C-alpha cells in the first residue's frame, strides 16, 4: 500500500465568547486539525483503493490527539465532532470517502467509544477551497444544541494531486443555543441517535 506523505499540517482553534448575546462563563471552543497529503490515486482511475484506509489510520489518530491537546488535553471536554475532506482536482470524490473509516474511528476510539456517527462532508476543489465541516454531539446525533459546523481551509491546498483531510472537535453547544429539541442532559446514549 502507498505510504502516507504529509506536506503540511494546520491546527485552528476558535474560542467564542458571545454572538451578540450574554458573554458565556465558559467560552465554546472548536478546533480543526487539517493534514495535506499526497493523493496516491491522482490522475488515473483505480478500482482497488480501499486498502489506503488502513494506511490512514495512524494519521487519523495523530490528528485526533492533536485536537484533544488543543482543547486542553482532556478527552472529557469533547462534546461534538465532525470530519471532512477536500480532494484536489486530479482526484475523485471517492478518494475523499477513504477518510470516513480512519478519521471517524480515530476520534471515536480516542473519545472512549463515542456512540454517534461522525457527521461528514467532502468535495473536490482547488487550493483555498473552504470546507464547512458539520458537527454533531458525540453520543447522540439528535442533540439539537450541538448541531454546528466549523469552516476550515488552507490557502495553498489541496493542490491537484493532494487531499486535504479534516477532523473537528468542539467543547459544547452553540454559544446561544435556544431552539429546543433533545438536550445533551437527556441523552440515553444507547443507539447513537438519542
Amino acid at each position, binding site marked *: 500500500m502507498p505510504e502516507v506523505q504529509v*506536506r*503540511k499540517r494546520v491546527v485552528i*482553534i*476558535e474560542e467564542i*465568547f*458571545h*454572538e451578540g448575546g450574554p458573554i458565556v462563563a465558559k467560552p465554546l471552543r472548536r478546533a480543526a486539525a487539517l493534514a495535506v497529503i499526497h493523493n496516491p490515486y491522482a490522475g488515473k482511475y483505480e478500482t482497488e483503493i480501499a486498502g489506503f484506509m488502513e494506511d490512514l489510520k495512524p494519521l487519523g489518530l495523530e490528528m485526533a490527539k492533536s485536537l484533544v491537546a488543543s482543547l486542553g488535553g482532556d478527552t472529557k471536554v469533547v462534546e461534538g465532532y465532525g470530519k471532512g475532506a477536500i480532494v484536489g482536482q486530479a482526484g475523485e470524490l471517492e478518494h475523499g470517502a477513504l477518510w470516513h473509516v480512519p478519521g471517524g474511528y480515530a476520534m471515536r476510539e480516542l473519545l472512549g467509544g463515542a456512540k454517534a456517527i461522525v457527521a461528514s462532508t467532502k468535495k473536490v476543489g482547488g487550493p483555498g477551497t473552504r470546507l464547512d465541516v458539520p458537527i454533531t454531539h458525540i453520543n447522540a446525533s439528535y442533540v439539537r444544541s450541538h448541531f454546528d459546523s466549523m469552516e476550515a481551509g488552507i490557502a495553498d491546498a489541496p493542490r491537484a494531486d493532494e487531499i486535504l483531510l479534516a477532523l473537528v472537535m468542539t467543547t459544547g453547544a452553540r454559544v446561544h443555543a435556544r431552539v429546543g429539541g433533545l438536550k445533551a442532559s437527556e441523552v440515553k446514549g444507547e443507539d447513537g441517535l438519542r
Partner: protein
Amino acid sequence: MKAKIRKMVTFMEETHTEMGKPVSPPTRRAASAAVIENPFAGTFVGDLTELMEIGEELGSLLTERAVAALGIAGPSAESYGKAAAVGENGELEHAAAVLHPKLGTPVRKILGKGAALIPSSKKRGGPGVPLDIPLGHKDAAFVRSHFDGMEIRVNDAPRANEILVAIAVTDSGRPLPRVGGLTKDQIKGEDGLR
C-alpha cells in the same frame, strides 16, 4: 480589558515537504486573531485613543497565544507580522489606530528584541475576508529568507461593527529558501534592517 472580544481564533501551520523535498525541521507559523467590537463604527470620531489602547491590550494577548501555539519561548521567534480587517461600518483609520501606535511594544516585550518594523496590512471587508499577514524577520527586515506571508480568515468576521485583528509569529523562514540576500546568521541587529 477595554477590548470587547466576541471570538478568538488561533492558527498553527507546519510545512513538512515542498515539491516532494523534505523540510526538516518543518517550518512553522502561528497566528492569533481576535474579533472585537469597533467602538467607532458608523460614525466619524476624531480621537481614536480608545482603539490605540485596545491595540496595546491585543499586542500582548495575541502574541502570547501565537507563541504558545508554536510551543516556543518568545525570544526564539524569528519573524512577525500584523494585520487588521475593519467591518463595513468602520474606517481604515480604525485599523491603523489598533495596529500602529501601541500594539508593537508588548509584542517586542514578549519576543525579546524585535528591532525591525513589524510588517503590516489592513483592509475593509465583510465576514470571511482573507487577511494576508505580511511576515519579516523580527531583528533585521532585510533577511530575505524570512520575507513571507500567512493567510488567515474567520468565516463570520468581521461583522459590520467589528474589527478582526491578527498577529503572526514564526520560528522559521520560508520552507526551502534559495533566492539569496541577507541570511539570518549575518544579522548585525543594530538598525532593525540588517
